[in-house]
């Protein structure tokens, strides 16, 4: 499992490095039809109406990256609040039962905030090209080579952000906040390893909260009061001692 994951980490950026976020920013996605595993027919924009969405695409038959990636998303986004995770199959060979089986396999068929569905072949083509989602059928393996990308879509169907491959969970949380529609004035970069961090990532809420580094700033004023108290106490104790003969 680990070997596969680390393999993905190297492969994914190499394969899809040509994708340029700037080109996709604020591009509107087509309103393609989607069949949900509950059997309902919906359009993609309908799914976005109530809340922002983190969208990922997969194939039920994928032998490569899809399983570890869905596992990774499950681990990091188990029960999203204020936004939804939408996982759609782009594979024309998939039937609704395949998609439902995948959802069950990951234990996410009934998870709150998760929506599983199947794209129709024509809709899939148009959506994939808008998203810049590279898919190539490899007949020797009878499998697709494809991107692993997570898209943040706002309620109007615009692409706000895209994140490729298995990134640091902190970046994922940042996407989640973006999806909630927050303007986050500033965000820490997760990779730097420092002694005392000012912010720590809260895995539950996906937000950064103040940490030991900032708490350290309380030490100086406390020290001031403590010192004044100590000097006062020391002087009082000396005063109460009987004078030396």
């Amino acid at each position, binding site marked *: 499992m680990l070997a596969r994951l680390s393999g993905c980490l190297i492969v994914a950026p190499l394969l899809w490095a040509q994708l*340029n*976020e*700037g*080109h996709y*920013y*604020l591009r509107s996605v087509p309103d393609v039809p989607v069949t949900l595993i509950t059997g309902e027919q919906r359009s993609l924009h309908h799914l976005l109406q109530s809340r922002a969405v983190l969208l990922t695409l997969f194939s039920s038959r994928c032998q490569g990256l899809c399983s570890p990636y869905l596992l990774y998303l499950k681990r990091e986004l188990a029960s999203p609040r204020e936004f939804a995770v939408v996982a759609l199959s782009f594979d024309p060979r998939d039937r609704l039962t395949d998609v439902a089986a995948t959802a069950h396999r990951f234990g996410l068929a009934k998870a709150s905030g998760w929506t599983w569905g199947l794209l129709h072949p024509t809709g899939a083509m148009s959506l994939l090209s808008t998203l810049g989602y590279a898919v190539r059928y490899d007949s020797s393996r009878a499998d697709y080579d494809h991107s692993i990308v997570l898209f943040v879509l*706002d309620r109007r169907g*615009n692409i*706000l952000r895209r994140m490729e491959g298995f990134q640091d969970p902190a970046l994922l949380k940042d996407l989640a906040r973006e999806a909630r529609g927050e*303007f*986050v*004035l*500033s*965000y*820490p*970069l997760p990779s*730097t390893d*420092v002694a005392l961090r000012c912010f720590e990532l809260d895995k539950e809420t996906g937000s950064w909260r103040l940490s030991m580094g900032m708490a350290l700033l309380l030490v100086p004023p406390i020290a001031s009061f403590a010192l004044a108290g100590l000097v006062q106490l020391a002087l009082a104790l000396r005063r109460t001692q009987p004078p030396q003969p």
Partner: protein
Amino acid sequence: MPQSTILLLFFLGSLVIAGVFWWVWRTSRQPAPGSVEPLRRWIFVGLLLFVGIFTALTLWRMPYFLYAEELPERVIHVVSRQFAFALSERPIETDAEYAAALGQTVELPLGKVVEFRVTSFDVNHGFALYSPDGRIVAQVQAMPGYVNRLRWRFDQPGEYVAQCLEYCGAAHANMQARFVVR
């Protein structure tokens, strides 16, 4: 407040202060009984009003969330490093991406909100936007380990200069980037 208003307020205020001191200094040459004690209450009330009004007027005008409700038309990633800025529409995460972005020309839309995501690969830098007529219109600091987001709407076309505004070493004065707004 534009810089010229601030300077005007400052010079007017300074004149009033200097005037009061000059007047009191003049009275000191003719000793006479008298006390300013009755004025004390009024001066304190006046000061309280001054502080209250100014705070009420300015505290809600924080520049941080000016365009928080709007979606920016463009997002520009900015990485600062001794002694150049790299501006790019795609994220800059590696040294190679930084080097590639250095030569890029960036053009920004007039009258639309754009967002700068500013960070640093080495020390603290400042990222100040100078308008074509050489005035600072907005700024943000670039701090290693953090990305600061500055949203701004350019209302004047022309060539802008991003100038480093935090002392960052011997060549700090020449740390600049240029971009065009049209």
